[in-house]
């Protein structure tokens, strides 16, 4: 877990052929997911959503609304569908909103995820970023979504990046009040890393520092492009290699740009065929999204009733 003391740490990651990786990623979009597979896939995807609001204008009321939606994505599900739909996996907010979310989600089993470490840019002194993290945990966060130091990464100072991730990991490892376990998600901000070689290198670097059960994550959602199938594939392959090589098991969270139920099924197909059955669970795969859940609900209702719902049929959060 200890970071290398060297600033210019060598990272011996495999190279990635972008054209071939993109072609492989695109192949999952031609998987035909119908009938029972679609029904099961939509429910699985819903259970993997990190319902997210990350805006300067976020209000406590909006967060409470989001938490209500997280607990019960479709309150009239039993009447309309004849079944109880799963809750989402987590609600993802800024640190200032963690106390609100923690209160609203208390006892639900839904995690409070907080972006931290000077999200989204990370352009703050390390001690500020660590205090940001500790405060979010103290206020009730079960999951910390940290950003890496892209400036250091892009200038080749991998040792610094690794060391900082290790320090945030150490803060998370102390857990929250009452011995609450805290998981870490490391946001690579792949839109700023640009090349797949960088994405793979950053993935390997992060995976080496974090613990079993922690995640790597594509994007803040504040930089374009956010999550893409190609980037996610490269990261899934890094996770697979760490598992096969060291038995270390890491989760994956693509975030940003996944808006439709169909996209989410394509991602699930990619997870299924890259990492297999064991990762098809909210414990190991998440979608960071704000509008995805509504489209999933729309498709579930359409499958059941044959009719498309209007946008206003589901409460906005």
């Amino acid at each position, binding site marked *: 877990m200890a970071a290398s003391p060297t600033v210019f740490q060598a990272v*011996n990651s*495999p*190279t*990635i*052929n972008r*054209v*071939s*990786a993109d*072609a*492989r990623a695109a192949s999952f979009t*031609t*998987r*035909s*997911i*119908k*009938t*029972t*597979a*679609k029904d*099961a*896939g939509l429910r*699985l995807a819903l259970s993997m959503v990190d319902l997210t609001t990350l805006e300067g204008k976020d209000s406590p009321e909006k967060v409470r609304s989001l938490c209500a939606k997280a607990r019960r994505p479709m309150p009239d599900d039993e009447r309309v569908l004849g079944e109880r739909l799963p809750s989402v996996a987590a609600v993802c907010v800024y640190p200032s909103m963690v106390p609100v979310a923690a209160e609203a989600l208390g006892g639900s089993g839904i995690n409070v995820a907080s972006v931290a470490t000077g999200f989204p840019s990370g352009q703050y002194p390390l001690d500020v970023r660590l205090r940001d993290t500790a405060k979010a945990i103290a206020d009730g966060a079960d999951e910390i979504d940290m950003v890496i130091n892209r400036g250091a990464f892009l200038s080749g100072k991998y040792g610094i990046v690794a060391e900082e991730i290790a320090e945030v990991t150490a803060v998370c490892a102390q857990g929250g009040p009452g011995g609450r376990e805290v998981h870490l998600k490391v946001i690579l901000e792949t839109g700023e890393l640009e090349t797949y070689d960088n994405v793979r290198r950053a993935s390997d670097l992060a995976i080496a520092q974090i613990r*079993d059960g922690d995640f790597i994550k594509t994007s803040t959602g504040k930089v374009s492009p956010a999550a893409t199938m190609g980037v996610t594939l490269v990261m899934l*392959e890094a996770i*697979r*290699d760490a*598992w*096969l*090589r*060291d*038995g*270390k*098991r890491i989760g994956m969270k693509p975030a940003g740009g996944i808006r439709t139920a169909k996209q989410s099924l394509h991602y*699930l*197909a990619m997870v*299924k*065929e890259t*990492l*297999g*059955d*064991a990762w*098809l669970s909210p414990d190991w795969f998440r979608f960071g999204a704000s509008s995805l859940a509504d489209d999933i609900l729309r498709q579930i209702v359409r499958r059941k009733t044959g009719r498309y719902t209007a946008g206003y049929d589901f409460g906005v959060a």
Partner: protein
Amino acid sequence: MTTFQEQDAAAVTKTSAAGPGRSPALEFASAWDYAPAPETTKVEIADSHGHYIGGTFVGAAKGGTLDTLNPANEQKLSTFARGTVADIDAAVNAAREAQPKWAALPAKERGKYLFRIARRLQERAREFAILETMDNGKPIKESRDVDIPLVAAHFFYHAGWCDKLKYAFGGAEPTPVGVCGQIIPWNFPLLMAAWKLAPALACGNTCVLKPAETTPLTALRLGEIFDEIGLPPGVVNIVTGDGEAGSALVEHAGVDKVAFTGSTEVGKKIARAVAGTGKKLTLELGGKSPNIIFDDASIDQAVEGIVSGIYFNQGHVCCAGSRLFVQEGVADEVIAKLKIRLQSLRVGDPLDKNTDVGAINSRPQLETIAKYFDIARDEGLDVFESSCELPSIGYWCKPSFFTGVQASHTVAREEIFGPVLAVLTFRTPEEAITRANNSPYGLAAGVWTDKGSKIFEIAGQLKAGIVWLNTYNRFDPASPFGGYKESGFGREGGMQGLRGYVKLGGDR
């Protein structure tokens, strides 16, 4: 570079994946399986088919009929005429009669016909894809996304050449060869028809096409398109049947050029038959193509390249990357990852949109493949097979590979023409080149490295008609295709492919 302990086959498939402490493995069972997604569009298939001669569909002269089966369920799809010398004679005569007028058409008018064929094929693409999959056994995703689009692309491409031929040969004025006898295989039935017909027609020739005896249906349906678009009678004639029709076509005195794609064994017979007759000849024959992975390659993408090299179209590909050469330092990792990848290849109903590997085209071909498994076991080779379940009827072969292969082993020398790979290793680039070239064949090769300079250094030394760099089995009508040595001669596609269908000043 990461090294993987080569995993026990059972561990890859059986051990349940879980947290630390247990053996790291991946499970691809069925936590969330894809529901069947069969292509449901119905394609009408007539009970019987005749030859297409002189613009009309006619019955067999007296050769009787043959059946064509769906290899995925062994059900008969239709009967078709078994061509005889008399049928070939009628077809060649129709082509001879049509040829002068076809050649005399203004070039851009010939181009319009080819454009129309291409457009109509696109309009009827789904029907052709389904029919191809039923007759051949290949997965619908390949016939839909590869075969049929490439067929249309070949006609489009050659439509553009019709009125530009004189720019293709450095100012020499090209004239048509005359009547072309074209014999095509069963692995890409309609695509091979397009590879043969499109350049021949563009250059002002007329054609007699003999489809393979297990896959005649899409070529015959192409005859319907010729009718629809008003192609003049006799410009393309299609005679179905077996080897008898094929030899009659090769030997017919009215044929000016023979083009054949198929086995090296039959190719040699054709070369002997044509020798001394003055007929032009192009042959596209077998292969045992090397796919070479260096230790500085992008390994995950190279593994995809292995898969598309040998498991594409059930390995029924003349340019299949059937000999894999992996540099020693990454061999364990590549083999471990290939084993994992094989578990997610979906084998089964070719009409299911999620099928990756379809049915073997015929029982004889399945027996040929089985024979090589026996030989490999006799020679002491280890085989790894996908753990997929095969349907109970139809002709099937699990995607497989042999490890511990040496250059002298039979499966490293002979073309198997199935989803079966021979895995060899090498230590130095020189060794890779020597071993890759150590083959009677020379059709294709693949090179995988992240280093640009190495790519060109290695590619220049490989004796193969096609060298793919960091990719495999990619086709384009603008790119010439053909072999060295016993893989044949002549090129198909691109500007070079036109040369086999024209006479220039110095030609007889």
